[in-house]
């Protein structure tokens, strides 16, 4: 009788054979380089248009606008500090959202498993219904103008709180789905060894649940990062607001808004990279 392990190894070889052989870096990113080169050439032409003798109004205007938008009064620093604010809000809101979401998910799963904590479960359900049923901008303004209306409090904190509370509702549903997707035999196996419900949850169920929902959680993080752009509604000088402030000062919408869009885009692309690295590490235990 052949060892079954050998069969598995040969299957693995077949799988690897179908993976595309890694192309060289420049070849994989050929279109990225072309696009970047076009932008660079365009920027250089604009910057050096007088020296090049290109006396076209299009280039002249773009040059003047660029100087007005970013150089005069060091206005690019508005974008930099706006970026800082956006990042601070996002980090705080994500932390709060994950904490809230995990707690709510466990409360709902406990309820599903018949370990009903009646009052708390009801509260969680109201929270989910109200938060997911109303726009985040409205929640943000309610928290700032109504709840903290008469108290002086940092706007950044209020924004972090509002986005965190909002994100928590979505994270809760994501994690809950992840927990329910873990085979019920896992809980039984843990309990049959004499582990408590809590330890089994923590050591066996949650690690598998998190792995399953990681793409969805990152999706939520990306959404949250971009959603903070509405913090301007309570006059927080975040990245989007900074771009808008430049626009209203220079009356040029094109460059500041594109600059803001580019910064968000780069951040999301960076996050996606991080995400795929983490995912690859977590996938060690299966050869999908």
């Amino acid at each position: 009788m052949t060892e079954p392990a050998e069969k598995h190894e040969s299957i693995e070889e077949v799988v690897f054979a179908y993976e595309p052989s890694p192309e060289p870096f420049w070849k994989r990113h050929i279109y990225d380089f072309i696009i970047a080169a076009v932008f660079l050439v365009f920027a250089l032409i604009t910057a050096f248009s007088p020296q090049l003798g290109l006396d076209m109004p299009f280039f002249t205007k773009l040059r003047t606008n660029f100087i007005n938008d970013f150089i005069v009064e060091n206005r690019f620093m508005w974008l930099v500090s706006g970026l800082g604010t956006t990042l601070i809000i996002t980090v705080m809101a994500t932390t709060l959202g994950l904490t809230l979401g995990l707690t709510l998910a466990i409360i709902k799963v406990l309820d599903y498993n018949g370990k009903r904590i009646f009052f708390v479960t009801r509260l969680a359900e109201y929270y989910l219904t109200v938060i997911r049923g109303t726009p985040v901008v409205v929640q943000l303004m309610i928290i700032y103008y109504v709840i903290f209306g008469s108290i002086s409090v940092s706007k950044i904190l209020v924004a972090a709180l509002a986005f965190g509370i909002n994100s928590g509702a979505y994270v809760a549903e994501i994690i809950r789905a992840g927990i329910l997707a873990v085979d019920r035999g896992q809980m039984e196996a843990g309990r049959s060894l004499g582990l408590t419900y809590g330890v089994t949850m923590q050591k066996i169920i949650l690690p598998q649940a998190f792995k399953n929902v990681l793409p969805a959680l990152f999706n939520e993080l990306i959404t949250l990062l971009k959603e903070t752009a509405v913090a301007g509604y309570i006059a927080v000088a975040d990245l989007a607001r900074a771009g808008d402030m430049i626009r209203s000062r220079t009356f040029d919408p094109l460059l500041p808004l594109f600059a803001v869009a580019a910064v968000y885009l780069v951040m999301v692309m960076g996050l996606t990279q991080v995400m795929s690295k983490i995912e690859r590490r977590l996938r060690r235990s299966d050869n999908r």
Partner: protein
Amino acid sequence: MITVEKLCKNFGSLSVLKNIDAEIKNGEKIVIVGPSGSGKSTFLRCLNLLDQPSAGRIMVDDVEITAEDCDINSVRQKMGMVFQHFNLFPHLTVVENIILAPYQLKKLNKDDAIKRAYELLDRVGLREKANEYPIKLSGGQKQRIAIARALAMNPEIMLFDEPTSALDPEMIGEVLDVMQELAEEGMTMVVVTHEMGFARKVASRVMFMDEGRIVEQGTPDEVFGNPKNDRTKLFLSKVLDH
């Protein structure tokens, strides 16, 4: 020793176990057979409260586990269980699967737990798989690891819930061999299975269940050789003739 008194289990309006009385002494190897839907697995799962009985009492070594205030976790630490679908923890390596419970429950420190895990792996003949993830193992190997994982808690009783039903025929032998060795070492075992050969060889008592009742029990020779109940005869004629 396990004593079961008037055990009933209902799923909704469906009555799966009907007033079961049974006694399992230390060192006994009980094999439970019967048609599907007869309540064999539910009976087994009631013994460590994976299924909560609807009525009746179960005593394990003078501890009434069906009592409200019973600390079931400490009782379960003495009762290993092996499942039909293995239920290995896929995010942990083989050795991590085995040490998880003894280490978490502070039965052993990490070094001793790992040493013990390797002893158990030698016993089931899978030392070289220690650092593999379960997905890389065949069904038979998974089940042997599952047995090792249950043994890591040094249980006094082992419950087997159709341990070979999900296996390819060629892998059933390797699992039954491990179980037979365990039986020869004197482990108290309760096994739900369709492997009649195993029942004949290993069982000290065979229980035949049908429609939520134990309709006949005795030594393998009595039950297989000279069944008294009509339902038993019918069942055995169906499974033994092939």
